[in-house]
């Protein structure tokens, strides 16, 4: 049952974090969705998409705007309302897709992919071998792993080794492992 549709490109990942203060949350949300011209995900883990961006609520008062391709976006939050911070350098995106996506993931993270919280369109923050990662379920059989840059090679190799049995000699994942550092340093 070897299968070649398993890819593991490692890409940079543009992220803007915005966060409200405890008391200003409603005003902050109103202002943010006005600036973005989009509605905001209601609960932690839910996402909304706008243009090339995904809006994720990563904590009760904290949102991540994650760009799918290198994209800019303007949005400015007054200190009185909340805070804002670019996080585009610290994380890399591992794209997993194909029928074996979850055969691979079950050896990486303890997430129930049939649960509400992990349905397509959800973002799951969890632990991958002691490292905090965000797993964005982008489709039925596709996930993006946002991993801290300093751990990306180590975790990438882990994924590659898990995936090996599912991928024919040609399969990209197997080949990818040794080249990961390159992929990471010059994305």
């Amino acid at each position, binding site marked *: 049952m070897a299968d070649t549709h398993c890819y593991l490109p490692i890409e940079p990942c543009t992220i803007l974090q915005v966060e409200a203060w*405890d008391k200003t949350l409603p005003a902050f949300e109103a202002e943010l969705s006005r600036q973005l011209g989009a509605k905001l995900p209601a609960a932690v883990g839910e996402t909304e998409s706008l243009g090339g961006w995904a809006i994720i609520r990563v904590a009760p008062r904290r949102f991540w705007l994650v760009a799918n391709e290198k994209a800019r976006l303007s949005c400015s939050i007054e*200190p009185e309302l909340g805070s804002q*911070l670019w996080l585009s350098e610290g994380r890399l995106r591992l794209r997993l897709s194909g029928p074996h996506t979850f055969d691979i993931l079950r*050896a990486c993270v303890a997430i129930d992919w049939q649960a509400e919280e992990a349905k397509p369109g959800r973002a799951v923050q969890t632990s991958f*071998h002691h490292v905090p990662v965000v797993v964005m379920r982008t489709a039925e059989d596709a996930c993006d792993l946002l991993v801290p*840059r300093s751990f990306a090679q*180590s975790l990438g190799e882990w994924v590659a080794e898990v995936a090996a049995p599912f991928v024919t000699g040609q399969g990209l994942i197997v080949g990818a492992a040794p080249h990961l550092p390159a992929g990471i*340093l010059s994305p």
Partner: protein
Amino acid sequence: MSSQVRRLASGGRIDRSQPFEFKFDGRSLAGYRGDTLASALLANGVTLTGRSFKYHRPRGIFSAGPEEPNALVTAGMGSRREPNLAATTLELSDGLVAESQNRWPSLAFDLQGVNSLFAPFLTAGFYYKTFMGPTRRAWMFYEHFIRKAAGLGKAGIEPDPDHYEVRHAFADVAVVGAGPAGLSAACAAAKAGARVTLIEQDFLLGGQLLGERPESAAAAWLREIEAELQGLGNVTTMTRTAAFGVYDGNVLGLVERCADQGANGGARQALTILRSRAIVFAAGAIERPLVFPNNDRPGVMLASAARTYLNRFAVLPGRKVVVATTNDGGWRTAFDLAAAGAEVEVADLRAEPAPGLQAEAARLGIAGRTGTQIAGLKGGHAVKAARLTGSGKETEIACDLVCVSGGWSPTVHLTSQLGVKPVYRDAIDGFVPGKLPAGQFGAGSMMGGSATKDAIEQGHRAGIEAASYCGKSVAVPAPAPLDLGETAAAPFRQPSSFGRGKAFVDFQMDVTTADIALAHREGYESVEHLKRYTTLGMGSDQGKTSNFAALSAMGALRNATIPATGTTTFRPPYTPVAIGALAGRAVGHHFKPVRRTPINDWHVANGAEMLEVGLWMRPFYYRASGRDVSEAYVAEMRTVRTTAGLMDISTLGKIDVQGPDAAIFLDRVYANGFAKQPVGRARYGVMLRDDGIVFDDGTTTRLAEHRFFMTTSTAKAADVMSRLEFLLDTVWPDLRVAVTSVTDEWAAMSVAGPRSREILAAAFPDLDVSNDALPHMGLSESEFDGRALRIIRLSYSGERAYEVYVGASAGEAVWRRLVEAGAPFGLKPYGVEALGALRVERGHVAGPEIDGRTTLNDLGLGRMVAKRSGYVGEVLSRRPAFEAPDRQRLVGLECIEEGKRLRGGAILFQPDEKMEGHGRGRVTSITFSPELGRYVGLALLAGGAASEGNEIIAVHPIKAETVRARVVSPVFLDPKGERLLG
């Protein structure tokens, strides 16, 4: 296959089209796919399989499952060798190589068999009473031989060539056991709409039904329900998978022997961590042996096991058989053996067994005796005859197999692991699970039943209840019925024999009734004392067949009831689990994830000797700097002091602190003040723990009115981050502050040395890095190739220095840029050893001084907090003991002996005093100072600065060194800090 003298011509669940060859103790034998090693050995007429733990008595195959106490073998060779495997659960594979254990030189002739002669002395706990002299260390002499004698299999020391997988799984309903109860439970739960995982340790589904004849109704029922389960989309069936443990939160630990056993790159075993909302336990029951003299001889076998070998494996385990039983079940074995052509006698302890049984026995020509029990055996390496006593007379019957059945013990192991004590049930004279917590259910013989019919109904009900517990309650049709007509007669226990001849209770640990009697006599009468004094139930089978017999024997001696006697504690794992399976992939270099800076590859490519620092890889030193570290770090220091050095400091913890109340927040978390810190300025800060001990230090730069950039030590980054969040979430929720770890956002490098400014200027021509534009503790923010570039003028080394921060993806580019621009000025990279040495010369405290026991005053930082209050840790930092006059405080040391050196870890004494005890302090960090031409160091010394100028002795007994040193200020160079400024 000719060698298979005991294999029947037809029948069984073996695949005769797939013959296997295997070796046992060097002999080549033959078997089939579908055999276990045990069934194959029996088929080949091999009945002697091992020697016992203590007395080295010959032992054979006793059971047909994981309860096997005797037939433990070592399988595999070289680095794949694996000791103490139960032959009864070891699936036969082609080319399998197995050996018997605990015998020398050979199984048939075992020298330590002589232990049997010493048996009178080797009673329970004999070793507590002797081996005490002549000298105090006598035990060390005897232990050597005791250890050799003890132990079963021999383990290899080579690393394991195979690999293992850990899988995370989830289910609504987990069903443990795939006998009739488990099968119908899984079926019902699935039909009710639940997501089901069915777990079976055997490689076939069916449980006890596999012991029924292949052409029986049971076999048909089995085929049917297996097909049905396959049809259901929401059932995952895991065979070869033992549920070894139940943990909090309905989490099951499952270990699977992968079918291909590690072939073609696959894992050898897989650990599945199954998080289920409900669990149905249908783990069945284990048959009990009878306790009579020499009951451990090869050829004595559990009745249900004999039946399993006959019907499942098409092996005739004996030609002349005596079945000794206390219940109806034993008769069923007799019937099947007789039908297969064996000559069978039944000895039933009971006066009148179910009437139908004797009729059937007569029909099959089986001599059935009632009111008769087995009293002993003849034969050494194999059973020769059985002694039966009944209604006064004693008869001896020649035989080659003795089947025993002392009733059944429900498999309460798993349900008890979470602390639910099993409860005694008269109706079965045994223990059943205690009151199970919400979400756990039980079914089948595990709950005390013995009829298949009931097992199926209970399983069905449990499946439905479990599903509805998960909110799944689609109506489910009744299960296909199956009635094997088992008659559950009143239980009847054969009293254990305490008479002459060894009557074994725990075969694997060689515990006899005499040992139990002795334990009782000496007051080890609690079952837990009994266990620990005799080692009863402490073998790899965990006493699955012996526990009940043991506590009923102890009960008898104490004349206490069974419930009053109680059971020992059940613990995971249910069956032994390979440590490799638990670790999965987290072995070798994956033991802990490796953390790399954005500049890592440059270091490796440019001859850095890399060093593990926590999870990080950091340059220790660069080989170009010297032959070894001690040469290299000094050269690298010199470069920094004379021209300039470049250091990768990306591992520093970095935290973005924002918000209108950020300054107030920092003013509280740092011991020294931050409220009035000007924008565009950096400041050194120290944090205390709540108990007033120094927690961590670092620098924080005010980027804007409401925005700060904090750095922490590499080691404490995560702790500091979490602590800040704790204070904001739980203590000062009203403060409008956001903290975010940006450690991975930034590549960071330090350019340090007299020429550092020129180098920066050359590297970034369009930046003004002049002293006015960028003074000491100043900040410059700009961009590099679209990424933020942040230069903060900070010095750790004491030289003019700059910390350059840039978006991580541009880290290597900026590093290269600095290397090129710096080359003409003599810039060289330096590693952590030099970094540490430079800070020592500068008198900066770090890990060795901030050791979780030192205060601000101890570290000479007290003045920073003079007349401040209201910061974390303040109040307890003023405790009396912290101010004691002999408190050990930071000083500098200068080696004043030619040709000698200081060493970290040396203990300090005054020249005149006796060198013993704990001394007056210790050397915490040292370095050779190229500038001073001698070794200098930091130390914690009683009295601290007060003793500056005094001479002191640094003693290092391990190196047999004593060195004279002078106490000086910890700042060795440039006390006024002129090098930093200007």
